[in-house]
């Protein structure tokens, strides 16, 4: 379609930034869909404020969406954008620092009014002085062009103005040869009447502007990536986690019960699962975090696959009930979509600060298995794995995600349902001890107790938070019995079957980089960079934090140097050092943003 010269590039990072009300998340996600349908590999990272609408034009109100796409497989949303689309001065100001010299800037020139400049803290208009000379700047009057394009559409001037994000989307779609049919279709689906027409026209006008404007001399093509054959869809971590929970319900043949209380960034899990009632899924929006986990535990007693979802500030409230679940030895999946803390912290920003909380944040000896998702699509498998462990060992299980995985997206090669693990379990139906039912008799292999649910005749029994006698489950304050029960609960968790950790190594490495959870992408990308320069580095990434993979000690001892990058002050580091007496070093950042591959690569090189 384009008649201008075409430049082939292998990858590009684009960031859309504007006011919270400018529709940047929508623009970014539709651009992502176009990119996915074209067949590029991609990774996205939205970056939005916790406030729904901070004052218009202000610095805190800036919302951004970054997409990295390439003709080969990629692991991160990119360190720095090659292209910044800035809808106003505030968006320019907050994002410019991330832009390398020579990057492309597309700004909405209409928004650079005195008032907006002042709100963003600009004394001079940066479009008119020399401050942007290092960049390739396209000053596009997005607002007035949009209004002009919509002059025959029956919408108010304000409504016309609001369609400027579609103009920008059209322009970017033209510039990068994105397919447009899908976007037109979704515009018609999402909007009605004149608003739909306005958005469609703005989108097409943006495309046409690129084509005709002399400001844009070349277009760019990024060829499809060679991905594993299969059917793909683009997916965020939260979407994948919700689907994983649905799948866990299906694969366990149990009704899924989700008790939750709205909290950023985990609310989408409750919202998603509430839409899947046709699977027999019960979602319960509780009065608070405590009731959310309480209701889930009650449902677990009744034989449901019980789940509660939250983030750090909610998890701390749930800990009392999780302790009860440990004592009751009932299956329960606790999802913690980690965000920056302490306390309310930075609700929309990621952190890996809850690992030790999950492991130890309860009174007394109260062990739980901990699983962590490593990629957005990996949240699907992690959810099934957490449910598998919970059901097999009759225990609460933590599943750690984070705000980066939750909102970031990537193409996902859809699994065949037939290939998913069978995680079904059985309920007790018969007395298990001389005609009686002893609720705390254990399976000798797994140490799991039987799950006898109400409604089963003859197995009536009482369980509770008081210490129980081994076997019978009767209340017991006996010293030896308590010691035995503490050790049994610990042994049960310690013997959870966890697969060995895979080491990505080419041989001859002296340095092992050990990561966990949501840092997989940046660490993997950094390892590639170091190797491209001839550096030798091995990478192991943990998705099971308790118990650790059986080969972890051996892996750690095979390398003279171990580096543990974490988005906290060294929680896994502390665990491996104390557990294995390995002199590992940490690389830690707690900035509320994902690691940059470049800085991780530097940290690795420094240890070579």
């Amino acid at each position, binding site marked *: 379609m384009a008649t201008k010269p075409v430049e082939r590039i292998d990858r590009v990072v684009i960031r859309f930034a504007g006011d919270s009300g400018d529709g940047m998340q929508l623009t970014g996600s539709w651009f992502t869909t176009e990119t996915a349908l074209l067949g590029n590999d991609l990774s996205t990272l939205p970056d939005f404020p916790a406030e729904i609408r901070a004052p218009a034009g202000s610095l805190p109100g800036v919302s951004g969406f970054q997409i990295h796409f390439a003709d080969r497989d990629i692991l991160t949303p990119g360190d720095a954008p090659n292209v910044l689309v800035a809808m106003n001065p505030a968006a320019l100001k907050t994002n410019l620092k991330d832009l390398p010299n020579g990057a492309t800037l597309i700004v909405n020139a209409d928004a650079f009014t005195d008032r907006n400049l002042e709100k963003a803290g600009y004394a001079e208009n940066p479009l008119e002085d020399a401050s942007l000379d290092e960049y390739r700047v396209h000053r596009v009057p997005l607002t007035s062009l949009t209004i002009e394009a919509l002059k025959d559409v029956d919408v108010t001037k304000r409504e016309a103005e609001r369609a400027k994000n579609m103009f920008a989307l059209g322009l970017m779609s033209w510039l990068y040869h994105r397919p447009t049919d899908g976007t037109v279709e979704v515009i018609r689906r999402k909007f009605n009447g004149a608003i739909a027409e306005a958005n469609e026209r703005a989108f097409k006008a943006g495309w046409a502007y690129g084509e005709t404007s002399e400001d844009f001399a070349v277009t760019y093509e990024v060829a499809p990536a060679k991905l594993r054959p299969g059917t793909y869809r683009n997916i965020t971590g939260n979407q994948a986690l919700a689907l994983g929970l649905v799948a866990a319900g299906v694969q366990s043949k149990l009704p899924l019960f989700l008790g939750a209380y709205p909290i950023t960034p985990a609310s989408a899990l409750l919202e998603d699962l509430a839409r899947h009632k046709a699977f027999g899924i019960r979602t319960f929006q509780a009065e608070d975090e405590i009731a959310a986990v309480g209701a889930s535990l009650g*449902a677990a*007693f009744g034989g449901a696959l019980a789940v509660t979802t939250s983030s750090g500030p909610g998890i701390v409230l749930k800990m009392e*009930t999780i302790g009860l679940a440990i004592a009751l030895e009932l299956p329960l999946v606790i999802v913690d979509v980690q965000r920056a803390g302490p306390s309310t912290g930075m609700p929309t920003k990621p952190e890996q600060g809850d690992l030790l909380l999950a492991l130890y944040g309860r009174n007394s000896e109260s062990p739980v298995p901990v699983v962590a998702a490593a990629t957005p699509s990996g949240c699907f498998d992690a959810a099934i794995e957490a449910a598998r462990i919970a059901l097999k060992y009759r225990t609460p299980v933590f599943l750690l995600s984070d705000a980066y995985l939750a909102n970031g997206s990537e193409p996902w090669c859809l699994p065949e349902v037939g290939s998913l693990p069978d995680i079904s379990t059985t309920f007790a139906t018969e007395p298990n001890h001389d*005609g009686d039912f002893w609720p705390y008799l254990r399976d000798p292999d797994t140490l799991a107790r039987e799950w006898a649910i109400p409604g089963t005749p003859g197995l009536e029994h009482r369980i509770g938070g008081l210490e129980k006698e081994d076997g019978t489950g009767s209340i017991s304050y006996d010293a030896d019995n308590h010691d035995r029960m503490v050790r049994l609960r610990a042994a049960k968790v310690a013997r959870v079957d966890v697969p060995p950790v895979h080491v990505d190594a080419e041989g001859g490495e002296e340095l092992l980089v050990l990561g966990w959870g949501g840092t997989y992408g940046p660490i993997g990308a950094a390892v590639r960079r170091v190797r491209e320069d001839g550096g030798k580095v091995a990478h192991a990434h943990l998705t099971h934090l308790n118990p650790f993979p059986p080969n972890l000690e051996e892996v750690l001892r095979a390398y003279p140097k171990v580096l543990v990058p974490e988005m906290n002050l060294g929680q896994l580091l502390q665990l491996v050092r104390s557990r294995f007496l390995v002199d590992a070093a940490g690389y830690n950042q707690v900035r509320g943003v994902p690691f940059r591959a470049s800085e991780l690569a530097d940290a690795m090189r420094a240890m070579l």
Partner: protein
Amino acid sequence: MSGNGKGSGNGHALLTMKDFKSDQEVRWCPGCGDYAVLAAVQSFMPELQFPRERIVFVSGIGCASRFPYYMETYGMHSIHGRAPAIATGLSVSRPDLSVWVVTGDGDALSIGGNHLIHALRRNVNLKILLFNNQIYGLTKGQYSPTSPLGTLNRTTPMGSLDWPFNPLSLALGAEATFVARSIDTDRKHLTEVLRRAANHKGAAFVEIYQNCNVYNDGAFDALREDKTNTNRIPLEHGRPVRFGAEGERGVVQRPDGTLEIVDVAAVGEEALLVHDEKLEHPSLAFSLTRLAHTPTGPTPIGVFRDVQRPVYDELMAQQLERAKAEKGEGNLHSLLHSGDTWVVRE
């Protein structure tokens, strides 16, 4: 604690009180009012003609919360204040069960206040028995949220500063559909109230005045020892509200809606308030709860309110059915492939 292996799935009509006694030794203080309540519940249960294996008692923490251990049903002794939340999850996911919550004044009204009001508001199908003894017994005698102002005890040597809750006023304010009060030692009255609660669809809230003979002995003597109805104001649906040995005292409604106790002879029988527990508007029931803030004088007992409202459990089950009817039984393959997909070929 073991089950006795005696299945009750068939022939449950033959169950007796002893079928509901577990093998656990009851460990309340001698003379505690809880014994009487336990005996009343155990003797009433067979009458429910409900399979024993489908009955669940859930409790929190406190003396009363030991209750489930002594019932040969399914049961959970949970954590402080959380029983209504736990029972909610159990009840809504298992509508085939009869779920009972046993709680106390500290458990339900202090640490668990939030869960109680929301279970009532949602009208979850729970039978909530609140043993009110106006004291923390298990922790050895601190004042509770129902203790009268000025209560002298271990944490309030100069008298408590807290104005107490009126549990029934609170329940009504929380949109409860069934609200009743009874007395631990009055087996007949308590059994009748339990029967009514069990038959109620939705959340039933029953306050039971229960004597703690160790830390708060005699708190309810004005009613417990009241054989002549000097202080007990029995509420009976459709009947004038009157009490006293000869029914010589009664309740009338003032023009402003509040209630007042009068001599029947002075006002005439026709002036007496006729109790109507079915009133949609809870204000009259609320006024009845305000006749006595702490039970040292004339105090209504019986069913204050019994109305029908959609039950949370049923509403949720209906949504699941509707979703299946509209969309068909969930199909995982279709769900995974929904949205924009594309195919990468060899």
